[in-house]
């Protein structure tokens, strides 16, 4: 990665609404160079999506989230990839990670209600032939996500004017 690409990722990760013009000024590069670098990052699938961090708890949307530890039997020649693919195709699944430790896959699942989520685990996930066991933990409260602290207002404690 070039220095410009690294800077662009830093800037966008903090605020992905900033215009290319502004990024060009902030990095000291030409607009065309920045546009090309962003295009490159997108083409290389380094930047996948520009999405906000949302605190759903402050909305009226009903929503349950769970982290499911899944133990599976790896398949010959495919390892864990084939089963991971089977799992991530479900719309309920937000993230899938292959983990070291006492289980194999960590699956983050989101549903509207507890009932829906239970139906997903018992009806869709557990019956998969290579899944040998699951342990579901529900998210009770979110404190910090993507580097953003949720629970408190981060007020500026600095003096308005100081020498």
């Amino acid at each position, binding site marked *: 990665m070039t220095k410009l690409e690294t*800077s662009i990722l830093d800037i966008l990760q903090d605020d992905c609404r900033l215009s290319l013009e502004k990024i060009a000024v*902030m990095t*000291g590069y030409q607009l065309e160079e920045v546009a090309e670098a962003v295009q490159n990052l997108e083409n290389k699938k380094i930047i996948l999506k520009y999405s906000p961090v949302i605190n759903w708890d402050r909305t009226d949307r009903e929503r349950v989230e769970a982290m499911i530890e899944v133990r599976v039997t790896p398949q010959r020649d495919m390892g864990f990839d084939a089963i991971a693919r089977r799992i991530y195709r479900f719309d309920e699944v937000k993230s899938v990670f292959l983990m070291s430790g006492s289980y194999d896959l960590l699956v983050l699942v989101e549903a509207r209600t507890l009932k829906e989520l239970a139906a997903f685990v018992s009806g869709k996930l557990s019956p998969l032939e290579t899944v040998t066991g699951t342990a579901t933990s529900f998210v009770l409260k979110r404190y910090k996500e993507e580097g953003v602290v949720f629970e408190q207002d981060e007020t500026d404690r600095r003096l*308005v*004017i100081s*020498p």
Partner: protein
Amino acid sequence: MNYQQYLNSRISAVPPSGIRRFFDLASSRKDAISLGVGEPDFKTPYLIRDAAINSLIDGETQYTANRGLLELREEIALYLSGRYHLSYQPEDQILVTIGASEAIDLALRALISDGDEVLVPDPSYVSYAPGVIFAGGIPVPVHTCQENEFRLKASDLEKAITPSTKLLILPYPNNPTGAIMEEKDLSEIAEIVIKHDLIVISDEIYSELIYDGHIHISFAAIGDMYPRTITINGFSKAFAMTGWRVGYACGPEEIISVMNKIHQYAIMCAPRQGQVAAASALRMGRENNYEAVLMMRESYDRRRRLMVNSFRQMGLNCFEPYGAFYVFPSIRCTGMSSEEFCSRLLQEKNVAAVPGTAFGSSGEGHIRCCYATAVDKITVALERMADFVSSNS
């Protein structure tokens, strides 16, 4: 009672800080966006805070040595030699103080006798001139200007020298202008210092905040300046540790020991947890190549470019400031004085900036804007300021 007769006349004679009035004005406006702050918008990196928390848990609540924890002084020595090629002995050449502010005050009090003249680049940080007066000296402003990118010029310096001149305060990178001094500039100043037998207080608190490929050069590292220089620095700006109040002075043993004499009677020692945190900041920096400092510097630099660019787009004459976290544009094209510009900007657009005149008369026609503020706030503040400028020029 008439308290005036009891108060020290020398101190009473110093007018209240020009910034104070603005502070009151700006504080009364709840939603103002402030470009008037003078400190980082980062919190102290958590690992540094954690070191102080652990020190409290471990019951480290006692005085430290007057000169500061030896461990911290050793780290300071390593830091200064590694970063700026300065060699100071931790035992007798380094004094840990309550912020760089105390170090400045001690240096002035240790060196000034009644009637000594002290050269202070104008504009500069607000406490130099009052500090000189409190110590019995006479501050002599040395004009700096935008045409020279607010660098101190040897010719201007020499014009201000009289037989009573004893000291030069050299505050670069500079607050409020963001100006830096390069090696050539410093060498020219060094010649004058030798020629007129001066001592230099080099306030390098912004030494880590320098941008665009420029490097900070310590004045004491310039030929022959080491025995004539008191180097002052601290943790507030580089490590985002303003509220901890930890700074230091380094210099010839003979001067540092007199400064320590005042410090031991007046202060005893800087607070222990601040010193512990400062030592861990330097130790971690040494181990990870000052990762946190570099991250913050990079972030300031982006905002610096954004701000300079915006001022130029609004038609304000703005030299490129390569240091600290301030931009010092000229607002002369509006026909307003610095005071009037800032007052009206606050009243009409709810944006606070500091008039250049708060830092000395050479700041007239300029305003100080700090870019250590979130990009979205800077953006809104600059849009409002652009409106203000275009309707007034």
